[in-house]
């Protein structure tokens, strides 16, 4: 415990570095996944091809991906760009499938009504499909957020600065409190980001709180899973 109190500034600094590496991949993977997810939902062939490729991408373990990406990107192994790209790829792999399913689960009655009322495909997507897919998208991005925060720590074995450095440093100096502090801080950071996303979801989708729709109820088990 003493170690934690004496090193609070260090933990704070590592947490900020951790945040700087986890937030961009979460935002990027969401933005990139929406068009890809739309494409995956639109055609049968694209669904199969995209989901297979992304499934294989997700199968690549994180440490090897951190090592290999510099060859493709021309970056250094400890560059933040390297880490952010790797984590964005994982985020996309998780998120595209959720986006495709979320868009696919929008009732065709609703989309047809929207078309009948004169919505162009473009405005229909933004004003009907996307908002209705919102709750599932939120559940998906929460999973991405939590796993991203946890994955950032792996980079520590290569010297990438994050809360993970508390693990490697704790091992070398044999300080259990340091490793424990790192774990607690990582989980706390994940919960903090998760909470922020829930808050953002309530702000952007006020209707999900008012009436418990069938779709909102369907994502509930996952809500429990992530916050627990």
């Amino acid at each position, binding site marked *: 415990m003493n170690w934690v109190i004496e090193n609070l500034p260090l933990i704070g600094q590592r947490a900020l570095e951790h945040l700087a590496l986890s937030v961009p991949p979460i935002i990027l993977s969401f933005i990139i996944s929406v068009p890809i997810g739309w494409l995956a939902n639109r055609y049968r062939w694209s669904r199969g091809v995209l989901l297979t490729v992304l499934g294989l991408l997700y*199968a*690549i373990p994180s*440490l090897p*991906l951190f090592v290999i990406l510099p060859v493709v990107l021309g970056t250094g192994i400890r560059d933040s760009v390297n880490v952010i790209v790797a984590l964005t790829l994982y985020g996309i792999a998780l998120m595209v499938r*959720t986006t495709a*399913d979320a868009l696919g689960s929008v009732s065709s009655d609703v989309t047809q009504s929207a078309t009948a009322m004169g919505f162009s495909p473009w405005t229909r997507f933004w004003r009907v499909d996307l908002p209705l897919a919102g709750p599932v998208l939120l559940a998906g991005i929460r999973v991405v957020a939590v796993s991203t925060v946890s994955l950032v720590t792996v980079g520590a074995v290569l010297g990438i600065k994050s809360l993970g450095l508390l*693990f490697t440093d704790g091992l070398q100096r044999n300080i259990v409190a340091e490793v424990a502090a790192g774990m607690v801080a990582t989980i706390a950071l994940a919960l903090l980001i998760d909470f922020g996303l829930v808050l953002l979801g309530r702000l952007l989708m006020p209707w999900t709180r008012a009436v418990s729709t069938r779709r909102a109820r369907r994502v509930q088990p996952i809500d429990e899973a992530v916050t627990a």
Partner: protein
Amino acid sequence: MNLLVDALAWIFDPSHQTGANGIPTRLAQHLAISLLVLVVASAIAIPVGYLIGHTGKGRTFAVSLTGGFRSLPTLGLLIILALALGIGLEAPLIALIVLAVPPILAGAYSGFEAVDRRTVDAARAVGMTEWQIVSKVEVPLGLPLLIGGLRSGTLQIIATATLADYVGAGGLGHFIFVGQKTNDYPQMLAGSLLVIALALLSEGIFALLQKLVVPRGVVANQNTDVRTSSPRRVAVVGSPTEERK
């Protein structure tokens, strides 16, 4: 791209094919650790998952366990166990088992849960005992999802076994860490390529297995075109690989 050529040259270099630090030895270590962990984790997770799936009790516990573990940093768990138990094989084995149980558990109980309750009631109505319902109805019908759980569990094991050498457990991760210490990037790259190949291989085998274990009766009745069967699909969150049937 020259670096990739160097890495491939490193892999096929005859001097890296033999000895205690050769690729076959490290690969065998990696496989041995992974298989052992997979067997132990399955022995724990499958019975518990089946119990939860059959009785419907403890579902909330299982869901929160599988979700909660997502936020647990694997490296931290590995290191804290290594500090507690000492450098060697014990800590990584325990850490890997702890990490592999949740996805397998999820596969086991969701497999049972995916079985249509009317099918279970019908089985009971024709006079099957509870044991027969489990072994003849729920297990075969839930098998694809169980294999899905084993698939993500195995992936998790192979990935984390790479980190295991950080606490001295050997395996393919050894090349990555030695390469890092000696500034030998081709060796790091070679180690990474080997791990990726192993992960993709396991992914392929499980994908094939998942297709093979679907009972024939189910395949015959399966509507392959989701668009004509129902306008809505159930959203899957948090898994890019498991295709729901």
